[in-house]
């Protein structure tokens, strides 16, 4: 089960294992993107993420951060979420992608990471942004790494407690 938590917080990210300031694409401060490796949820808004995506030595990146609106939840196995995962496999893979979870059965959002300027445009066509709103952010170095693209064509999670595309049973 993934023990890695991610949150975009307004204030300082107390106790985070990795953190970096985030800005909107027009340069406005957007908080701090932070990650924690621990069993317990570190802050109220934290969601579980594929831990391979977090790297304190990672360089600056652009992200599409898709988060479910407050009070809204969607089953992870909903057809819309399945279809978004298919599209991620179909399209050129970003530097990293992870769905975001709080529990074992709901889709709470996704993070897509790109580094190459010519790939930044792809964030505007994030398949997960068809489900919940996306924020496009520039994140400084110190938190986001890279993931190998999934082999495909698996869209299932390897255990419901793990985010997709984590690709092996524990």
């Amino acid at each position: 089960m993934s023990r890695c938590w991610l949150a975009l917080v307004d204030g300082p990210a107390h106790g985070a294992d990795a953190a970096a300031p985030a800005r909107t694409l027009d340069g406005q401060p957007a908080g701090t993107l932070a990650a924690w490796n621990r069993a317990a949820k570190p802050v109220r808004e934290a969601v579980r993420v594929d831990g391979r995506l977090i790297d304190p030595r990672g360089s600056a990146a652009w992200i599409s951060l898709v988060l479910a609106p407050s009070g809204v939840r969607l089953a992870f196995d909903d057809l819309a979420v399945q279809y978004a995962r298919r599209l991620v496999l179909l399209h050129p893979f970003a530097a990293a992608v992870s769905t975001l979870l709080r529990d074992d059965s709901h889709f709470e959002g996704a993070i897509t990471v790109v580094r190459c300027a010519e790939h930044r445009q792809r964030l505007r066509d994030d398949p997960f942004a068809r489900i919940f709103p996306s924020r496009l952010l520039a994140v400084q170095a110190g938190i986001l790494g890279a993931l190998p693209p999934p082999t495909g064509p698996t869209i299932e999670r390897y255990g419901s407690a793990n985010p997709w595309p984590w690709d092996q049973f524990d």
Partner: protein
Amino acid sequence: MSDRRAGDGVVSPDAVGELAVGGQVPNFELLDHAGNRRRLSQLVGGDPTVLHFYRGWWCPKEQAFFRRLLALQDDAEVAYSRILSVSVDSPEVNAAFRAGLGARWTFLSDADRQVQTQLRLRETTDTLNDPYVPAVVVIGPDLRIHAVYNGYWYWGRPTVDELVKNLREISRALRPDWEAPTP
């Protein structure tokens, strides 16, 4: 074609090149369709995998066989099984072909033909393209070959049902909870 038999795998009359049932595919490293260097063992991970060597995008037989794999894809996406396709085409050509097909698995480029040479899979009758001889192997996480299909003549290629049977057999051996837990 000789009838090769090795290990505990399925007997197949259609061993091809160095690929034979019970043997092991070398843990080669190639560029994927996005230009990333990928190692076979990492791509296979812990799942049964269909490893497919094909001539190139231009071959009508390959285009027809890909339609079979596309049909399998819809099952494989929920069955913890993987598909890999290998050709001598460049990553850019593979990316375009993959996108046109609607394939959601990884394509690998052996443009310098090192793996093709290692596996003795060059189709000697086509001296223009020097492509792979069409072949499909079904392997487990240890890269051991469970089944092999020689696709030089089209009817030598596996049907979807045959691939499902192979994937089922590997999964049965691989998954400790294959026997469903019941009261």
